[in-house]
Each structure stands twice: as C-alpha cells, then as structure tokens.
C-alpha cells in the first residue's frame, strides 16, 4: 500500500519540491539553529551566574560603561551586568509599569531629569540606598544630590550621574554668532529661520522655550495662553520635530535645519567633528541632570557596589567623554581633565549657581493637560 501511495503522490508532484529535499532543508535549518545556540542555553547561563540589569543610552556611553565599570565589576564580584536598551524614556517607563512584578525585571536605569525621578517615585518604583555603601558618592556635587533628597527625604533611590542642558544649536554659516546671542530664546521665533527651524517633539522643552520667549519664568508660568499662542506661531515655521539624538545630529549636519533646541552633548559631538554649529545657552536655559536609578526589588548590595564602580572618577570621566555631558563629580574634589572642562554645561565651581532646572512637582502636575494640548498644537499645523 505504501508503494501505491507513493505513486499517487509522485505522479502529481511534478515540478514541486520533494519531501526528501524538505527533510534536508529542515536538517540544514536545525544545524544552523544549533550553531548559533538555543535561546534557552543563554537563559540558563544568566540564571546560573547571577546578574544585574542596566538600561542606558547605548552607543559610546554603554561602551564606556562596559570597559570602565561593568567588566571590572564582573571581575571583582562575579556578577554579570546585562545591558538593556531604552528605546526612549517614555517607552521605558511603560515597559517598567507593564512588567511583573512591577519593575521586577529592571534594576538600574540611566534616567533623565529630576522630574523622571519624581515620576518613578510617584509610581512607587523606588528603593532605599545605603549611602555609606557607596563611598564614591562623596565625590558628587552636593548641589546635584539636593533635588533628589527633596523628593525622597529618607533615602536616595538614585545617584546623580551627569549634567546637561537643552540650549539652542544654530548653523554659524547662516546665523551669525552676534545675532544669535542678541536674540537668545527668541531666535527660535525669528523670521529668518522660518522653514529651516527644528525642535524636539517633547512638550516640556517647547513650553519652556516659549515661556522664555514670552518673558516668563518657566517654573511658574502665569500666562499659559501666551505660551500656546507662541507655540502655534512657531509650528508654522518648523520643518521637523525630531525624536532622537540621531535625528537631531543628522538634521543639523545635513543643513536640513539651521536652528533648533538641542542637547548640549550632541552639539559638542557635532562640533568635535568639525561642523559649523554654534551652541547658545540663553538666560534661564533648560538645564537637567541625569541619574542612575535603582528600581524596587533590586538586590541593593549588588546595586550599591555597582554604583560605586560607576561613580569612580575613571569610569565617570570615560563615560562623560563618550557622551559629552559633564559628570556629576565635584570639580573642587576631583581633578577633572581638560576634555571634561571644556564640555558645554560644565560648571567649574561645582555649585551650579545660575543653572535653572525644571521643578519636578510643577511640571509633573501639568503633564497630562499640557502634553495633550501640545500634541494638539503640533499635529494641526
């Protein structure tokens, strides 16, 4: 009977792939899968060794972390550091919230802004660090730690890691330095940049600069209607709202836009590559600081040890050179090299006087309403 079946099959098979060949095909696929190693072997490896997860910005930053903090740490303790990936800040928070147990699979994260710290604390993802176990924390500027203490007075859940500013980048071929400095924040509303203007798609930054343009204190906006009007007028001038540092840099480098709000580190990077891009930090420029946050449920002993490795001047300086944001180290306590001292947003005094940060309580309380209103303005040009 078997033979007859074969006949039935073979008679009508003409032109199609035979079963035997298919088996070979499968075998090839199987061999390939075997060569690259099953996913399960990787999983068991991770479980066996003990590991901690760090989510950061990737690229040169993560390479610097790996070389100067993670690898030495693994060598000293035997605990592996798994490099995660953000996607972007908001996507990351969504993933943290949706994880089980809430925040459980995540350990350390390179969060930006004190307001982000407040968001995670508000959602109760914070932990309580023992500062005495992180000796290198003593090297950090006190002025950078204070904002976190205000939110969680009993114990920190993060260590400050670096500074940064969202200033204005402009192409010096099209916009002379004197003009930019004279106009300040209002450069972003100047007729000469119409059609060649860029901005970040995020709501906070745009509202901040509209507040500066309308002569208001960004941390206490009295006339929000004026802000919306200014932004409405600006949307018509904007060519592109960028969404990532990569986009920001390629827009500026390709001369697609001549002026935009910009992250200081990204601009420093462009300048070091020789592009004619100027960086302007107008009065009350939007300053921010990033921290390494420790999620609830993390093994604190391991986390504190790792944080100490990350804060060690050698690691901290290497990371700062990679991402071009000044480290949180206090220049009066640590001898910082020239490469760090000339980075934008660097404060040689370590006191951060004159730096204006976003008031986390103020901005977080406005988020739902303002973010949506901003989306409405941006989407209906």
């Amino acid at each position, binding site marked *: 009977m078997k033979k007859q079946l074969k006949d039935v099959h073979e008679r009508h098979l003409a032109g199609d792939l035979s079963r035997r060949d298919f088996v070979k095909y499968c075998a090839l696929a199987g061999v390939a899968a075997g060569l690259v190693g099953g996913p399960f072997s990787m999983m068991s490896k991770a479980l066996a060794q003990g590991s901690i997860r760090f989510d950061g910005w990737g690229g040169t930053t993560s390479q610097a972390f790996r070389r100067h903090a993670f690898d030495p740490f693994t060598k000293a303790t035997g605990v592996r550091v798994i490099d995660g990936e953000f996607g972007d800040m*908001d*996507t990351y*928070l*969504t993933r943290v*919230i949706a994880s089980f147990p809430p925040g459980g699979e995540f350990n350390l994260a390179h969060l930006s802004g004190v307001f982000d710290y407040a*968001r995670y604390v*508000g*959602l109760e993802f914070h932990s309580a660090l023992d500062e005495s176990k992180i000796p290198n924390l003593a090297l950090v500027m006190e002025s950078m730690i204070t904002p976190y203490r205000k939110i969680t007075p009993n114990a920190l859940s993060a260590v400050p890691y670096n500074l940064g500013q969202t200033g204005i980048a402009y192409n010096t071929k099209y916009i002379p330095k004197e003009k930019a400095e004279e106009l300040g924040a209002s450069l972003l509303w100047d007729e000469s940049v119409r*059609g060649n203007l860029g901005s970040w798609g995020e709501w906070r930054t745009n509202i901040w600069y509209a507040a500066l343009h309308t002569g208001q204190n960004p941390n206490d906006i009295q006339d929000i209607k004026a802000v919306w009007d200014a932004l409405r007028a600006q*949307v018509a001038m*904007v*060519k*592109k*709202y960028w*969404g990532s540092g990569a*986009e920001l840099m*390629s827009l500026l480098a*390709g*001369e*697609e836009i001549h002026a935009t709000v910009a992250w200081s580190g990204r601009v420093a990077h462009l300048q070091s590559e020789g592009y004619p891009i100027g960086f302007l930090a107008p009065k009350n420029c939007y300053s921010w600081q990033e921290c390494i946050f420790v999620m609830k449920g993390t093994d604190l002993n391991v986390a504190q040890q790792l944080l100490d490795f990350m804060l060690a001047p050698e690691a901290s300086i290497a990371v700062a050179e990679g991402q071009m944001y000044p480290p949180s180290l206090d220049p009066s306590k640590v001898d910082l090299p020239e490469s760090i001292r000339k980075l934008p947003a660097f404060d040689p005094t370590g006191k951060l006087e004159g730096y204006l940060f976003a008031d986390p309580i103020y901005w977080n*309380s406005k*988020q*739902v309403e303002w*973010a*949506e209103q901003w*989306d*409405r303005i*941006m*989407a*209906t*040009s």
Partner: protein
Amino acid sequence: MKENKLRPWLLLSPSLTAVFLLLVVPVLFVVVYSFWLRAPTGAVIPAFQFGNYARFFEDLFYPTILFRTLRVAVICVFLCLVMGYVPAYFFYRSKSRYRRALILLIMIPFWISFIIRTMSWINILGTTGFLNHTLMRLGVISEPLSLLYNEAAVLMGLIQYLLPFMILNIFVSLEAIDKNLLEAARSMGCNEWQAFKEVTLPLSLPGVSAGCLLVFVLTAGTYLPPMILGGPGNEMIANLIFKRVIGTLDWPFGSAISVILLLLLGCIVWTYNRYLGINTLFKAFKG
C-alpha cells in the same frame, strides 16, 4: 466518506488557542481599560464610564486626525495600485526565464530593517541627499529643493513598504487566469487592449481588491513613516495612540482611541467580507 464533526475543530484548536490567548483576551483588556480612569501619577483606576470616548469626540481634533489617517490610507492604496498593477502584469505576461527571480527580488526590501529602509529616504530626499545632489549636478536646479518632512515623503516611505503586498496579490490573481480565454478573445477580433479590458482586467479584480484591503489596513495602523519622514501636521492616528499610551501613560484614553480605530477597521473589513468575501484574500495570497 463520513465526515468527522470534531475533526475541523481539532485541526483549528492550536491556532485558535494562540489567537484567543494572545490576541482576543489582550484586546478585551484594552476594551476594559477604555472605560477606566487615569490617576495623576499615571496609574489607572478601575471604573466604568464613557469619559474617554466623550473626550475623543469632544472637539474636532481627534476625528480630524482619524480622517487624515483614512485619507492618507486611501491615497496610499491608490498609488500602490497604480504603481503595482503594471509590474504584476509584466510578470504575468513576461516569458523571461528570470521571471521568478524578479518576483522574489521584490521581497528583498523586507529583509532590510524597516527603520533603516525608512531612514534611507532621508539620504535620498534631504537637502544634501542623493536627489538634490543629482539635480544640482545636472544643472536642473541651483538651490536644493525641500523635499523632506511632508506628506509626500511619508507616502514614499509607506509605498516602499507596502507595494510588494499589492504586486504579489495582483500577480497571483493574474496567474490564475486561463490564457485560453485571451486567445479566444483575440480570435473573436479583440485587439490587445480590448482583450485586456474585457478579459484580464475583470478577472484580476479579486487580487486588486485583496491588495487594496491589505494596504489600507496596514497604512491605518502605521506610525513609523510619519514619525521619521513626516513634518508637523503629518501625524496619523497610531502616532497619537503611541503618545497617549507611552507619552502620558494615559492608558485608558489610548485604549479608547484604539477601540475606535479597531471598530472602524472592523467595519471596513466586515463590509469587504460581506460583498467580496474574505476568501478572495486567500486566493490572492497563493504562494
């Protein structure tokens, strides 16, 4: 031969279980969430109220974006059809021995990450991009044109992504046409164009409509091309879902928008199914 009543269900059970557990139940979660409230911290509060839906229709903003999405989807379907029919017809009539290879070739773009493919348009259409460079070299223009960050650029990205779906669908339904019919038409005195109009075109319509449906639905749910290639005012409904769910952690409202979009797409698919039959889609997808 006796037909076993249980057998089809047995055969279907693995895929139904998968789709039920990983799609139907999660989507029910979305429906439930759409009635909930958002707490100021970003947490959610169980409730039963229609506030999120009311918010969608409270002014013209969200309906406008929804309408824009549908408009872009229709334009995209039309352009894919115009650009896709001729190549499909070419494959059908061509006697080249590389025909199969050419059809496979159209799948190649799928293998380069969607993000890379979409971003590549920036290097083509940008101020210092390939197109401006070439045109300036040829002396056609003296100043670079501003081609990027508008609806046309978004459509370029979308078409590049979706055209293979359209071409494959049309090609497959053309392939199914009995070539004797064409001979018959010609022997009855039809010229090439008439034969095409009277025989080939009507018989290829199932593939055309299946391709259109697929392109339409995929466009309506996309958000990367508007994000990367669009300027202000080119965002589509999926971008807003993304912003509500991810940006402001407003899962209840994001869920409500999703439910509205799902209902709308559901209506379209249902209508299609009613008048053309979902089976056309299967026929058209013949490997």
